[in-house]
């Protein structure tokens, strides 16, 4: 992994996978780049299509800095980390034309999953010119961390007490038990992300939402797609975990990225 340094001094781990026209991949809450995009076969699927990738560990996760202050996990901060990574990779920067005049920004294709999709929406809000096409996986009408409630999340992460929502307990437990997990940082991340309401206006770039039909986290994905002006692909028989690795998700995205 390489490390991009943010203006406030945190380090954000990222890595480039070979291939043309790299896709920026943004993992979800409590996971990291390799678990979300490596083990699930996404990097292989992109490579088979000739596409490169830029994977990142979001702050609070994997090999990146793990501050304990919720204010350090507002969606704008997380989106700025992605900009820092794109800058460090030299992707999508202003191209200099004749006489050094900028001829415009070249955006990258971005795929997010779960909380990573919310961060990608924040990037679309704050730096729309950096995105060419946008894929939002595993999200619905209600942001999951806010829906679960910050207190319930802290109970699971810090005190080890189950939440009333089974999916929440399973996802949070798995997050807390990962090898490099910092439970305080994860709780701060949940609070920070949950404190922001993301815009539900139509997005300027082509956008595709992909969800499993057995994923409670993605409830109301059709309404979100309508609001954002996005396409919607529903993967049959898949829950929040198994949608990510499904062939249906990958083929829908690879098709969308070549349109």
């Amino acid at each position, binding site marked *: 992994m390489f490390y991009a340094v943010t203006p406030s001094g945190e380090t954000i781990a990222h890595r480039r996978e070979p291939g043309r026209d790299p896709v920026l991949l943004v993992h979800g809450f409590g996971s990291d780049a390799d*678990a979300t995009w490596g083990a*699930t076969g996404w990097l292989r699927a992109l490579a088979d299509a000739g596409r490169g990738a830029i994977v990142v560990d979001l702050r609070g996760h994997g090999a990146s800095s793990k501050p304990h202050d919720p204010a350090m996990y507002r969606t704008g901060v997380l989106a700025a980390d992605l900009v820092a990574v794109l800058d460090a990779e030299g992707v999508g920067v202003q191209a200099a034309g004749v006489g050094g005049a900028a001829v415009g920004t070249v955006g990258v294709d971005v795929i997010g999953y779960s909380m990573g999709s919310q961060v990608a929406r924040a990037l679309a809000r704050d730096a729309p010119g950096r995105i060419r096409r946008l894929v939002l996986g595993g999200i619905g009408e209600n942001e999951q961390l806010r829906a679960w409630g910050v207190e319930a999340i802290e109970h699971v992460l810090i005190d080890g007490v189950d939440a009333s929502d089974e999916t929440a307990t399973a996802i949070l437990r798995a997050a807390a038990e990962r090898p490099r997990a910092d439970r305080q940082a994860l709780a701060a991340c949940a609070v920070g992300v949950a404190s922001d309401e993301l815009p539900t206006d139509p997005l300027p770039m082509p956008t595709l939402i992909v969800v499993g039909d057995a994923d409670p986290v993605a409830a109301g994905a059709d309404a979100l797609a309508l609001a954002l002006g996005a396409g919607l692909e529903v993967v049959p028989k898949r829950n929040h*975990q198994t949608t990510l*690795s499904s062939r249906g998700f990958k083929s829908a995205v690879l098709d969308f990225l070549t349109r």
Partner: protein
Amino acid sequence: MAKLTFDLPDLGEGLIGATVLEWLVSIGDYVERGAPLVEVETTKSAVELPSPQSGTVVEFHVDEEHDLLVGEPLVTFDVPDDSAGIVGTVPAEAPPKRRVRLSLPDD
């Protein structure tokens, strides 16, 4: 031709088994080593396993939506005779073996 059977590999994190979600190849397909073979779900996550072998798929030992334990047969390939016998297990990311000192240190 010879038949080679591969077992469900150790998926790490103390996991003892998995559920087959979807076979990504069909019986009779020729599959390259490293190409997507099968998608499985554990209690912690869903993962895609690459093929451990180049060869023709002749048998799935477990159906979709069924469970199997680490070490139980997963898939059988038909491979040319000259490549059979070289490998018979799913390659694992094994840590290097401990070096053994063959002579006593001088001090």
